[in-house]
């Protein structure tokens, strides 16, 4: 972990808004970005104030390739009258970060660990903008 000595890093911490708000504002404009550490180069998701690898507060935003691989999957079972079944997955982005999401455009049972997927901006459970995935090469 880095010793925090640089005035610039303290400035990074104090400058608002915080990373949650920045991420949400970008997503609302249809932009999916993740953080990259200016200290050690690690990619970071979810958005944070300091790098979980090296402790640096010097974090910037980059556009990920959007390519990822399903790490684990579950299907939440719901009666049809309550909206029916849906999948919940953990996806490892090619940048090395993991996120929870949903894979659209494929039957729930066909989603397995190792499936290659591509990110898109879709809708969350309450209609809010959310990063979702579709099978690589598939149409959404």
């Amino acid at each position, binding site marked *: 972990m880095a010793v925090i000595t640089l005035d610039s890093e303290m400035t990074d911490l104090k400058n608002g808004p915080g990373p*949650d708000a920045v991420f949400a504002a970008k997503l609302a404009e249809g932009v999916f970005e993740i953080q990259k550490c200016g200290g050690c180069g690690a990619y970071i*998701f*979810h958005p944070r104030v300091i790098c979980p690898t090296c402790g640096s507060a010097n974090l910037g935003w980059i556009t990920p390739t959007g390519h990822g691989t399903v*790490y*684990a*999957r*579950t*299907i*939440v*079972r719901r009666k049809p009258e309550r909206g029916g079944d*849906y999948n*919940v997955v*953990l996806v490892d982005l090619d940048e090395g970060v*993991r*996120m*929870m*999401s*949903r894979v659209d455009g494929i039957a729930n049972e066909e989603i*397995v*660990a*190792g499936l290659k997927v591509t990110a898109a901006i879709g809708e*969350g*459970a*309450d209609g*809010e903008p*959310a990063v979702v995935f579709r099978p690589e090469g598939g149409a959404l």
Partner: protein
Amino acid sequence: MSLRGKAAIVGAALAGCGEAHGKSSMEITIEAAYGALADAGIALGEVDAIATCQPLDMLSGLTLAQELGLNPKFTMNNRMGGSSFLSHTLWAAMLLELRLADTVLICYGSNQRTASGKLMTALGLPTYEAPYKPMFPLSSYALAADRHMTQFGTTREQLADVAVAARAWAQKNPEAFIRDPLTREDVIASRLVSDPLRVRDCCLVTDGGGAIVMRRAETAKDHPKPPVYLLGGGEGTTHRDISEMADLTVTGAAQSGAAAMTMAGVKPADIDVVQLYDAFTINVILFLEDLGFCKKGEGGAFVENGGIAPGGHLPVNTNGGGLSCVHPGMYGIFTLVEAVRQLRGEAGDRQIAGAELALAHGNGGVLSSQVTNILGTDTAL
């Protein structure tokens, strides 16, 4: 300085297990606390440090002091989920060893079954998981089970055998909530909730409370029941949200178990009886691996065909566990009470003959917090 053998559990009790109609969570807690003090032969006024953690009351430590009519020197309200109580024992041992307190009461109670019929929790979904609506906490464990099956070939049948073993133990425990026969086929035919987990892979929703009283080892024999010594303890915290868990097949129990066993000076093969927080069947497989009872990836084979059932190669969750005995939301305290009963020889039909060393293990959050305690009799000290 080691905490090995410095403190002991001198009183233990359960209260309101199953359905406690007309009682609040704190009322059940007080009933358990009163029982543990009676078991120890200690007057309420001698308690000078308390610890609790309750599902909905964020200041439950303060409520506990108020309802006990005490002005304790120390009030511990550390919240790590179901593992909290196994952490409270470690802090209790520190307070006792430093002579900052003389009598520590650790207790819990919940009326979640009769009050709500489901898991009561003050927790909401994490910001970056909420849009995908995972079931809390079930889907997090389902993802861990899916990954374990993918990575190691763990089977549906092996998961089921964890629940079958718990039920077989529950059938030997008159206090267990569900004691009907349960087969592997029953588990596999039960309703899917969040794949691959089915209803019978999930812990019960019951009411219930538990409490223990701890004192310094030097005075631990001045009580009616044989003391149960805290020989080792350790913690591991790896994440808060399942999407932040680095490897869904390796929990913080690897860290907590190693720390606890190093302090106690024991190895897994020395342990006579094991109490694990079995919120879901996958938990038992993960913890047996991470605590060193078998190799990583071999937990499925370890539990298969009665491996942890009565007559198997390792007795696990001899009360019937959260799966079949009692699960009022934060099960950790019950691993301690059952370990005490086994080490005192009070476990009736389910007693493990000659049990001298017990391991109690709590899980908190979504595989997030792991805390291990090694407990032993006078012989093991």
